[in-house]
């Protein structure tokens, strides 16, 4: 199935209003999906210091705000992430803390607050098994937290190495390898060679190996975990690849190599990039647009080349801060968050 040949468009399903300041990030509950008979659930976090939980009614199909998580964070909530079980939501805030919320069905309760960062926490991410979290901050550090019994969290590692503000942390989708990207223009890969060993920086992707020339804002992996997309203030998306089989066999660390750069498409900073399960990359940028890219599938000897599938101009009235594909298989919903205070739900559909 060649997506380029289909006449696809991004249709706005619904605009979710409620936040009173810019919306920084959205996160799909990984367990929710129409295919499973469970209503999709989306979390959004904002400069209004709150997190909103949105749910789609299985009857009317419309989205409503199910609950507002407030009066816990005292500053902007910059990022939110669901645990793989979908039972917990982690929230990273400019107040220097990370909140852990438990879903009790009809309401959420903050069961733990992770402290330690010297200033704003920018991002939080769960590993694939849900056994640990990572956070990062303007204090240039990346922390790894172990999930203990009884709603307790232990700081397992404080990773230093970035020379500036760390913008995002993201665990690999299948392995306990951690990635971070920074205002220092680099992406760092953190890994513990022994299972009980200490995490170390095993690779730095910087300008000297075809890396970005300005702040790196976001990291996302494809479904197989052998490719990664990063986006930057330098107005480019970069695709990286690795030998995942070698990595998984436990032989040794398989380095990430630059595969290609997508330049010339974006007019302003790209704040978010997300790779869908069926290989579509979405980007959200400061030019108010959402763009979708696909591999040209030419099986070129020179490696992959990505083409613009479509561009949604004026997706929002202001910067697009986050784009996230829904986790369902056939379901091609995309959520976006913006400085205009809105969350939008999009459907990738064939033009009539």
């Amino acid at each position, binding site marked *: 199935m060649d997506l380029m040949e289909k006449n696809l468009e991004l249709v706005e399903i619904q605009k979710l209003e409620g936040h009173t300041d*810019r919306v920084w990030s959205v996160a799909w509950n990984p367990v929710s999906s129409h295919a499973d008979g469970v209503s999709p659930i989306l979390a959004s976090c904002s*400069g209004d210091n709150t997190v909103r939980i949105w749910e789609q009614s299985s009857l009317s199909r419309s989205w409503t705000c199910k609950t507002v998580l407030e009066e816990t964070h005292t*500053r*902007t909530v*910059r990022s939110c992430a669901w645990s793989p079980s979908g039972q917990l939501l982690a929230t990273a805030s*400019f107040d220097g803390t990370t909140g852990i919320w438990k879903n009790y069905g009809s309401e959420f309760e903050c069961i733990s607050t992770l402290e330690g960062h010297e200033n*704003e926490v*920018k991002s939080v991410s769960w590993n694939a098994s849900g056994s640990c979290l990572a956070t990062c901050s*303007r204090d240039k550090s990346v922390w790894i937290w172990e999930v203990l019994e009884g709603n307790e969290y232990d700081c397992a590692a404080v990773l230093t190495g970035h020379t500036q*503000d760390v*913008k995002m942390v993201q665990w690999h989708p299948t392995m306990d390898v951690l990635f971070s990207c920074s*205002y220092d223009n680099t992406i760092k890969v953190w890994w513990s060679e022994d299972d009980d060993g200490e995490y170390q920086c095993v690779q730095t992707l910087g300008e000297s190996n075809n890396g970005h020339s*300005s*702040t790196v804002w976001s990291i996302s992996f494809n479904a197989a975990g052998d490719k990664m997309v990063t986006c930057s*203030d330098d107005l480019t998306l970069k695709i990286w690849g690795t030998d995942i089989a070698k990595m998984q066999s436990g032989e040794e660390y398989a380095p990430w190599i630059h595969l290609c750069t997508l330049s010339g498409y974006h007019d*302003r*900073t790209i704040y978010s990039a997300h790779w869908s399960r069926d290989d579509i990359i979405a980007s959200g940028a*400061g*030019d108010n647009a959402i763009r979708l890219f696909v591999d040209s599938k030419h099986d070129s000897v020179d490696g992959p080349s990505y083409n613009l599938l479509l561009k949604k101009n004026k997706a929002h*009235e*202001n*910067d697009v801060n986050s784009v996230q594909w829904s986790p369902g298989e056939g379901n091609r919903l995309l959520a976006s968050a913006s400085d*205009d205070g809105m969350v939008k739900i999009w459907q990738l559909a064939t033009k009539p």
Partner: protein
Amino acid sequence: MDSVLTNKNPIIYPKRTRRYRTDQSSTDEFSSTNRIRDIKDPEHPELSLEDLNVLTEESVEVDDHKSYVRITFTPTLPHCHLPTHIGLCILVKLVQSLPARFKVDVRVAPGSHDKETTVNKQLGDKERVTAALENPELVALLNKMMQVC
């Protein structure tokens, strides 16, 4: 504020006449951009950025069609340690008075400051600008700079 002044004897420049649009456009970006020249210097509150030639008419580039405004400012000294405050103040002033559709870039004039690249990158990072503006002490300083005589 530091007790020791970075620039003890600032040069004061004569005022230039300001351009005003004759049509009564409700989205008059020139009146918005004119207003930033009245911002006070953080060290010499009796002087405006225009008085010190930090901002001039040439500092402002407006592209109405593209909804874009670019401001280039010149700190009073190459080693002045307050250009980020001045840049933040310009940003806040413009965001307050311009229509939401405008994208604003505020930059140090090329060659005019030792840490030009660093300052420009900070001013271009809206996340760090946002976080800075959640600091009440900084906001109080910026508000003082924006007070009109």
